[in-house]
């Protein structure tokens, strides 16, 4: 199958949607499909061979934060050319409400279009972005997919219609064989995420770590992710500071290896998580998971059967859970086994099968994706000329 995927955000800026598009494309290619991705990009040299430069992104305020999106005449003509030359069986647009390449692709194409909604958007914001314009793009989409119940509600409440729920995936094969990054002096506890973002909950873990280290003196706290450790750890006593290692931001492969080296991965988040993909990554890498009991986390951990839960923001409870877990090798092994079973349902290989079912149900009996020339007076004339030129 020939699949064209549209990514709305800059490829070389880290983000959940970009990672999703990359994993989707690579999994489908591994399965033998032909995939082309068009995406905004800062530096076209960073693109993998299956991706096409959709233009430089501009910073615009969108959906409550500053997003790097691409639009304009030049982007439009690039998208049109990509569709014309791609001969795709199906077009897959990510985040169709973002005023970026996705909307341009919907306007430029006719034929089977599938779209995935990732974030939840308030109606007021949709209205501001131009409800009518969004509608004209949405009406061409044959199948809507939501990655979470949250995203699905956005569609049902604000856009009309329904969506198929296909959750985010994890490339389990990248994690399950990861070789531990290094040996730690004692049991290692890991944290992953922006150190200086309060919602990621590092202060709670630091408070708990003081208690843990008082009981297990060789325990090490491994910090993975961006942020300045000197600033974040400025209030931490020097003695405790010796037990903390900061690895900074790691690439995908090293992140998997760092997770594989842990005796417990802790997610002390206090809110703002809609899915908990990191938990799945830790489970895939074989790290026992301890997480705050946010709805999304409890769901991923199957109510606590695949990982230990503690009340959100409760440092003493976290310390107790982690100390017990570090002392109990049998329980750790049980959590690792349950986790690796659990993560299978979220494996990209199985997610991709669900996607292919959606593709098949919109492409059956269709003739693929072509350029939509309605309303394109200039484009139509130009095309006729080139067609004649090729014909003669």
């Amino acid at each position: 199958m020939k699949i064209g995927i549209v990514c709305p955000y800059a490829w070389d800026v880290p983000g959940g949607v970009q990672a999703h598009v990359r994993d989707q494309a690579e999994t489908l290619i591994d399965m033998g499909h032909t995939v082309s991705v068009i995406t905004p990009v800062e530096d076209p040299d960073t693109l993998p061979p299956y991706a096409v430069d959709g233009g430089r992104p501009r910073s615009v305020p969108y959906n409550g934060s500053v997003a790097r999106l691409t639009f304009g005449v030049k982007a439009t003509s690039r998208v049109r050319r990509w569709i014309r030359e791609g001969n795709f069986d199906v077009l897959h647009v990510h985040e169709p409400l973002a005023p970026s390449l996705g909307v341009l692709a919907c306007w430029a194409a006719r034929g089977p279009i599938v779209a995935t909604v990732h974030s939840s958007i308030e109606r007021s914001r949709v209205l501001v972005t131009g409800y009518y314009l969004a509608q004209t793009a949405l009406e061409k989409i044959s199948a809507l997919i939501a990655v979470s119940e949250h995203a699905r509600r956005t569609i049902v409440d604000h856009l009309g219609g329904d969506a198929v729920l296909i959750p985010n995936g994890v490339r389990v094969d990248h994690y399950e064989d990861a070789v531990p990054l290094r040996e730690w002096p004692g049991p290692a506890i890991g944290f992953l995420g922006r150190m200086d973002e309060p919602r990621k909950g590092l202060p709670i873990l630091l408070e708990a770590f003081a208690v843990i280290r008082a009981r297990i003196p060789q325990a090490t706290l491994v910090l993975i992710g961006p942020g300045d450790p000197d600033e974040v750890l400025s209030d931490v006593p020097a003695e405790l500071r010796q037990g903390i290692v900061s690895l900074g931001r790691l690439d995908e492969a090293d992140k998997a290896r760092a997770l594989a080296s842990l005796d417990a991965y802790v997610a002390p988040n206090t809110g703002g998580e809609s899915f908990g993909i990191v938990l799945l990554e830790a489970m895939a890498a074989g790290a026992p998971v301890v997480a705050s009991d946010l709805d999304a986390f409890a769901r991923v951990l199957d109510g606590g059967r695949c990982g230990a839960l503690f009340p959100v923001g409760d440092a003493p409870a976290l310390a107790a859970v982690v100390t017990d877990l570090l002392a109990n090798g049998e329980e750790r092994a049980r959590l690792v086994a349950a986790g690796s079973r659990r993560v299978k349902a979220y494996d990209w290989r199985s997610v991709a099968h669900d996607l292919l079912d959606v593709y098949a149900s919109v492409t059956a009996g269709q003739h693929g994706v072509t350029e939509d020339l309605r309303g394109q007076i200039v484009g139509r004339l130009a095309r006729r000329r080139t067609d004649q030129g090729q014909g003669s």
Partner: protein
Amino acid sequence: MGGWWWVVAALVLLALVGLYLSMTAGRLDRLHRRIDNSHHSLDMQLLRRSALVLDMTASGVFDPATAVVLADSAHGARAASEEDVVARGLAESDLTRVLVEAIPDAQEADDLREAAPDPTMLDDLRSTCVRVQLSRRFHNDAVRACRQVRRQRLVRWLSLAGHTPWPETVEMDDTPPPGLTAR
């Protein structure tokens, strides 16, 4: 002077109304096309499902009694494919129910997989049943979106939809056999 003002204002208003009407007509055209496509896809998946079931009953996957009932409802579904949407929905629902009875759990599915001359037959049936369900859902979504536009007063008064018949949803039981979807 005052008279000209009114003429200009009226012309602008007329142009705006014209633009709105042509955009709405374009929207309707897009929606009708989407319905045609989704209906065609659903039709293909349903035909594929009954063909697969007939194939499986002929190749001895099922025990003789189940095979007779399955083949009968599959033939019924194929015969109804030319009939109106209600009759077809009933016939396809019958096939769905017989399939659910025939493959009630994963154990049964495993036994059938062993009996099948080609084990991928069961996987084909699973994906076709899932695709029937998805296609119907996408089709009914398209119908709902189209009806919303066609209910607008201006669209009705000026009959912007032309002679295109009122879009109908497809109503049927499309539950995939539980034995095939259990993981």
